């Protein structure tokens, strides 16, 4: 616990974005998590991504469940809307909120306990429905808030701090998300903001269910030699398939002098994803290929990171349901309740 507030002073070079905000305007309260927690780095990456995209903080709703990860929305976007739900129930609340007001950007923050155990069903259905959201799992493989019992994402063969070896199979959240129909799926590492921030920006810009699995070491309980979610293990086994740049439509595309071929994926909203391929045999638009790649490389003990799958023509829940473009929460009584005559006509049409 840090007792002092973060000082108001800032570096002279701190600049305002197009929304008139500095990066500091996207911060929240000071973190109460353990020192060195990967989650704090993810919070910093979220701050950076929203700042770089010039999104006014009040256009964002951040929702979470229970756990260390679900505490973090307090520590970023202090001027955004927020909802801290019951354990594992963030996806339902987010779905409902999105149903009522489709104009906001929905950021669901969850952990491996909140999403892979108690909220596994909720996670599955929100993805399956294509809710337009950024769903982040801050994945550390343990229940940090209850002193480090292993979670459902702990790898087979990995050890707890006291040496107990895991014999259960792990849930691979990215494979699940791809299989369940998420239209944007990525995996990253809290200790690599150069990879994480562009992925977050692409996920924010994506219109559909965007899922991010972020490996986030728990320094208190899962950052030891037998762990597969430690800073050292992730750095040693990280296999990034691509490096992403998010180009907004007005930006000039300047090719960098870097190895690997470059692929551009245009999205319907005018954003261009520029991907520098690091693994030549990986195509993020090939769903079956991506699943196969994850399976094969996972079996070799590699942690595959980067943009893993993106649907070139995503559809979201509102498109599935054919809802009006005006958010339901601003419709008047006349529009929402057309009267008994209309109801009778609808009923008649179904007979």
């Amino acid at each position, binding site marked *: 616990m840090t007792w002092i507030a973060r*000082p108001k*002073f*800032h*570096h002279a070079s701190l600049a305002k974005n197009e929304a008139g905000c500095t990066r500091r305007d996207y911060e929240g309260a000071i973190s109460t998590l353990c020192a060195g927690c990967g989650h704090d*780095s993810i919070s910093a990456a979220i701050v950076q991504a929203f700042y770089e995209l010039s999104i006014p903080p009040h256009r964002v709703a951040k929702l979470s469940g229970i756990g260390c990860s679900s505490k973090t929305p307090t520590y970023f976007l202090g001027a955004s809307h927020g909802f801290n739900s019951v354990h594992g129930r963030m996806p339902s609340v987010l779905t409902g909120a999105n149903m009522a007001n489709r104009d906001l950007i929905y950021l669901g923050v969850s952990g491996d306990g909140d999403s892979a155990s108690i909220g596994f069903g909720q996670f599955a259905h929100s993805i399956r429905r294509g809710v337009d959201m950024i769903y982040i799992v801050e994945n550390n493989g343990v229940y940090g808030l209850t002193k480090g019992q292993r979670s459902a994402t702990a790898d087979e063969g990995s050890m707890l701090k006291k040496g107990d070896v895991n014999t259960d199979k792990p849930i691979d959240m990215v494979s699940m998300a791809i299989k369940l129909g998420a239209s944007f799926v990525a995996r990253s590492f809290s200790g690599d903001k150069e990879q994480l921030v562009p992925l977050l920006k692409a996920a924010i810009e994506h219109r559909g269910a965007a899922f991010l699995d972020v490996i986030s070491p728990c320094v208190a309980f899962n950052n030891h030699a037998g762990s597969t979610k430690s800073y050292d293990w992730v750095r040693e086994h990280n296999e990034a398939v691509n490096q992403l740049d998010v180009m907004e439509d007005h930006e000039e595309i300047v090719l960098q002098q870097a190895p690997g071929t470059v692929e551009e994926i245009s999205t319907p909203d005018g954003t261009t994803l520029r991907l520098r391929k690091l693994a030549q045999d990986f195509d993020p638009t090939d769903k079956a290929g991506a699943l196969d790649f994850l399976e094969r490389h996972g079996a070799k003990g590699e942690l595959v990171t980067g943009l893993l799958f993106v649907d070139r023509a995503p559809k979201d829940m509102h498109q599935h349901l054919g809802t009006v473009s005006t958010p339901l929460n601003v419709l008047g009584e006349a529009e929402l309740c057309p009267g008994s005559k209309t109801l009778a006509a609808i009923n008649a049409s179904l007979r």
Partner: protein
Amino acid sequence: MDPTDIANPDYFHRVVDCQWACPAHTPVPEYIRLISAGRYADAYMVNWKSNVFPGILGRTCDRPCEPACRRVRVEKEPVAICRLKRVAADYKGDVSDRMPPRAAKKNGKRVACIGAGPASLTVARDLAPLGYEVVIYEADPFAGGMMRTQIPKFRLPETVIDEEVGYVLDLGVELRAGQKIASLKQLLAEPYDAIFVGCGAPRGREIDVPGRKEAAANIHIGIDWLSSVSFGHTTKIGKRVIVLGGGNTAMDCCRSSRRLGGEQVTVVVRSGFEEMKASPWEKEDAMHEGIPILNFLVPVEFLHDGGKLRGVVFQKVHAVKDAKGRRQLVPNGEPDVTLECDDVLVAIGQENAFPWIERDIGLEFDTWDMPKVDPKTMRSTHPRVFFGGDAAFGPKNIIWAVAHGHEAAVSIDKLCNGEDLSLRPQPAVEVVSQKMGIHEWSYDNAPSNDARKKVPLRDKEVALKDIRMEVELGFDEKLAYAEAQRCLNCDVQTVFSDKLCIECDACVDICPMDCITFTGNDPEPALRKHLRAPALELTQALYVSGPLKTERVMVKDEDVCLHCGLCAERCPTGAWDMQKYLLEMTHAGAACRS
């Protein structure tokens, strides 16, 4: 870049900008923290050890520390370091039992000091407790030098001078007041092991324009006039006074005139207002007392009626750059201006004068007729004669005189112990972790957002009536605490251990000033550009670690670090620690000898 060598005492010393800028290297944040804690006597003694005259300097110092203060780069105004020093002096109570005892046994060495100003008194303070027999010769009837004769009493009360000069004399120093040295050769013949010349720059520069001689009765040399006022010989001046010159002496002259009957006092400077040598706060104080400062006017003639001064004629000039790019003042063609007056005070500079030093005693002078003095050892070309203060390199200020005094005392001590003077002692350095608990530090690490506090002044009407009435009232304890809390504790250093770092980014994420970056290594110019926030202040160092596990290095730009300790609080492995770096200069005594 190569990893930073933090074992070099200069590295962290430079981070403490105020202490680095102070000629005497007073540990400023250390005494400011003691003031915050209400430990005024301790704060006073930290000062006394380092700069000998805390009460005097707390009112009159030229404060090179303040423009250097990190607060200037972080916020706007520096911590009021100088006036906090006065707080320590004001509230310290009786410190006589903390003063060093008189030497129990003399060491048989004798030192003569010429002039009883700050430089000589510092030499005496450093040497007397070691057993040296120190004799100070002073032409005036009292000790204190320019602190007593030239600084007006409304800025520096006599009691403060008496007290602090007294602490030095009480160490068993012999003062031979009223005894002017007329010949150095003669003094050298006396049984002294070393002679220290601290006689100041006693001659005010003359002005040579028509009418100067004829109207001499009403044209006074600034420092002589101030001295005469100080000793009570001069108690009156005309109603209309013109002060020529733009230095601190001119400011003292005009403000003194206001108190001795001057109703219409004007300062006139040759160059621009901005180019004036006076400290900004002294200019402010003068203007606050209703004294206008006119600039770009060069005096060309004193007007008089048969010897009775009636005005000064000024030529209007402006500044242009000549072919070599040097700034020059040339007439701008406008008609001359005449200002009427009853008295003129000439404060256009001071000069050294050594008519009493014979030129055949092995003491060499340079082309400007100044003695050749080694700036490190303060020794002249005569092996037993040392210089310090204004006598050494021309007019500076009290704190420089003190710094010279300390160095000269070290040299004299080494000389008397048969040591090589060029081997200077290292400072004493103490580095202690400030960690008290998981997230608790033994200093207040939350930076204060307060703006600089103003020192309360006595009401102008009252202040202008009595030349001995101190204008500044000083901070009260509450204001002093608030001002002391503005100090960023720059001496509590961020110390990084690369072996412990797990590169979790926690320090990068929390740093409010974006000081910390983990990056691939590069030469310094390239590195400065691609940090999290560009490091454009080239006088401020980059702290670079050795290579980490990922081959990257940690780079910290020291420039605007708040020393808030958040990096260390958020560090899971203790790779960052906040360590207090207390550096004290080594003065004369066993520690200075090799």
